[in-house]
Every structure is written in C-alpha cells, then in structure tokens.
C-alpha cells in the first residue's frame, strides 16, 4: 500500500506554516502515525503535506505559575520521560504507556492526537478530565479553547482552516488531588475497547473514551458519593456504540468495571 502522490514542504517558522496550510489541498503532517497509515490506505489524498515537525518552539514542556504547557510537537516518548509530567500531570504519564508501541510513541505527538481526535484516543479524554485548555493559533493570533468544547464530534474539532493546535495547558495537580487512568484493550497497545481518565480534585471527573464520538464526561457518575452509586448512574451518562466484538451492553458493563477500579485508586492511592 503506497500513498497517493502529494507535494511536501517543511516550513521553518510558524508564520511560514500558516501561509502554507491555507493553500488548497494542504494537510498538516505532525508525527504522522495516524495520517501516514490513512495515506497508505488511500483514505486521504492531500495535494500538499505541510510537515510542521521543524518548528522547534512547539517541542517544549514548561511549568509556570502552576500551569504545565505542553507543546503540540512533544512526542509520546518525551511525555513518558518528562519529570514535570510525572510530577504535575500524572494522569498523562499513566496514559502514555497505553498508546501504541515504542516505535510509534517515538514519533507520534500530543498535538497530532488532539487535532485528529480519534474517539478511542487517550489524550483527548485525559485533557477533558483535567479540564485543560487547547491552545490554537492562526494568523490572527492565539486563542484558548476548553478541552470539553474543543472535541465537537467524530474526528471533528474546533479548529478553523489555517489554524494549528500549538499546545495544551493543564493546571498542575495539587497535593491532595488524585488521578487514575484505566484502559481495556484486546492486546497491549491496541485501540481501547473502552477506557477511563479519572481526576479527583474538589469533585470527581470521570471521562470515558471509546464510548462515543468524542470523550464522554460522565456527569451523573461524577457527582456520585460512592462507587456503587456511580456505577449505577453510568447508564444515564453512556450509550457506547458497538464495535466489531463488543455490544453496547458489554461496553457499558466494562465501563462500570473500570469506574469501580478507578474509584478505589482515587480513594486509596497517595
């Protein structure tokens, strides 16, 4: 399977990138770990690939005034090895080992995963659970979008033509806060059957992935005061679509299993 013909260009600055991505038929290439397979399978046929991986300003992780800012081109491997992430955003540090395999984690990026918005992807659910902001930039400047509003539908995000995801901003986890990340897959690194990103600060935030077109914030379950109650409320929050192997009822059941495990972790881990 070979990709269809396209032209390739690698801008050296954000300004140059904004010019290029406005061209008709242009598509942004970051780590390419989802885009290149889709090109190989000819599900996508751009005229021009704009490779943004030369923009080194998007490759850093910074911590300022209690906010962690992760550049869009930070790879999964970089995230996994980052001390600030392990310390201040442990939810992402836990999530990253579930993403594909080492050779893919070396190239895949946070920004790519956010902009692509696969409904079974780990980061979007984490960012919604963390109440993070997605930093979007275009010629007109920068804007911040709450993660929950950014993921609008199946592979659909709040990104206008000519705009790029440049970073995600997350409030550093406080001492008395907890997070838990759980995922069920048939084999290690496979797409999730169902997964859960959970965050406990003043209240709980349970966000499921592989459970709908976007990350699903389980509002009712999150307001419960004990695990059993949360599990019983899940059916009000989730209506997961069937996949090749699992019916909606199975997925809902598995979501409850994950929720119970997460509840234990949130209430007992330190």
């Amino acid at each position, binding site marked *: *399977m*070979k*990709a*269809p*013909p*396209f*032209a*390739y260009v*690698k801008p050296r600055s954000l300004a140059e990138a904004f010019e290029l991505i406005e061209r008709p038929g242009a598509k942004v290439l970051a780590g*390419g*770990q989802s885009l*290149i*397979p889709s*090109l*190989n*399978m000819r599900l996508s046929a751009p005229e021009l*690939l704009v*490779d943004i*991986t030369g923009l080194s300003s998007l490759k850093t992780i910074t911590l300022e005034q209690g906010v962690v800012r992760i550049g869009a081109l930070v790879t999964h*491997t970089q995230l996994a090895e980052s001390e600030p992430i392990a310390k201040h955003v442990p939810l992402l540090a836990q999530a990253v*080992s579930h993403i*594909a*395999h*080492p*050779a*893919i984690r*070396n*190239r895949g990026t946070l920004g790519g995963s956010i902009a692509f918005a696969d409904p079974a992807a780990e980061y979007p659910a984490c960012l919604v659970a963390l109440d993070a902001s997605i930093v979007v930039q275009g010629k007109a400047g920068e804007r911040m979008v709450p993660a929950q509003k950014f993921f609008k539908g199946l592979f659909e995000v709040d990104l206008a033509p000519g705009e790029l995801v440049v970073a995600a901003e997350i409030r550093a986890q406080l001492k008395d806060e907890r997070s838990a990340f759980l995922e069920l897959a048939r*084999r*290690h*690194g496979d797409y999730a059957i169902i997964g859960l990103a959970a965050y406990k600060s003043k209240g709980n935030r349970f966000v499921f992935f592989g459970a709908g077109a976007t990350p699903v914030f389980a509002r009712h379950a999150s307001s419960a005061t004990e695990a059993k109650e949360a599990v019983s409320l899940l059916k009000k929050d989730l209506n997961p679509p069937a996949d090749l192997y699992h019916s909606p009822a199975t997925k809902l059941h598995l979501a409850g299993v994950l929720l119970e495990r997460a509840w234990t972790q949130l209430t007992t881990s330190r």
Partner: protein
Amino acid sequence: MDPANDVTLTVNGTRVSRRIPARQHLVDFLREELGLTGSHIGCEHGVCGACTVRVDGQIVRGCLMLAVQADGCTVDTVEGLSDSKELAALQKSFHEKNALQCGFCTPGMLMAAQDLVRQGKSLSREKIREHISGNYCRCTGYQAIVDAIEEVLQTEVIHGQG
C-alpha cells in the same frame, strides 16, 4: 508526475543524497534506492513492525515515515547494526533459542529488542513482551523470542555492571 524532493541522510554511517518522490516511505527508500532489503515490508500501515529501523537513535516504523522526513537524519538498519556487531549478542541468542522460524519478522524484532538492550536494564518477561508488542511474529508464539531477549538482557546487565 510525482512531486520530488532532494534529501541527504546518513545510512549505516554512509552519507547518501538522492532526489526522491515525496510520497516514498523510508523503508521503500532503503530497500529500493539503496538495496538494503533487510528491513522488511509487512502490513504497510504501522501494525506489524517488520520495517522497524532506527532514526537518530530511536526506533521508528519505516512505513510510517516518509523518506523525505529523514532528510538530515542518521538512519541505522539491521544491516548496519549487524556489520557493527551491535546485534551480535541478540543474533547468537536468537539462533540458540530458536527464536525464529520463517525469519520474516526477525530484522524488526532484533531492532526492537536492541532498543531494549541499549537501555541496559534487567527486565521482567512482561516488560519484554510489552516492548515487542508492536512486532508481530506469526511462527514462534513469542516464547522463544522472549527467552532470547531475556538472556541477553541478563548477560549484558551482569557484564555491564561487572
């Protein structure tokens, strides 16, 4: 006609320059332009791991990277790491433990395994399995592959800290 780009990269220590189609994958470039057919092509969408090569010291999928993206990079393939003897311990161990049958997955498996060996840590079988989870073998059932990698890890760690 295919849009083309000029690339210069270092493959197994040798600098090469070519004009190549933008859509050409790195593994196709290695196999077809340079004749390095040790990196295999299996699924061509990033699932099987047969095309695993090293770019700037990190393992990647050769079918999920365009050759043009490797411009300016250092690429190492199974041929290069065999010649430099970096893979010698793994190759010996794979041979002794019968860690291959048809051999199609072996180059990718060795590249992934060496990535682990380079980290210089003794690891559980579970961790070894996790690390090679992106490399499919349809013959061995993995048991012998894990045996082979485990042995090298244990030997390297003993010698490394000796």
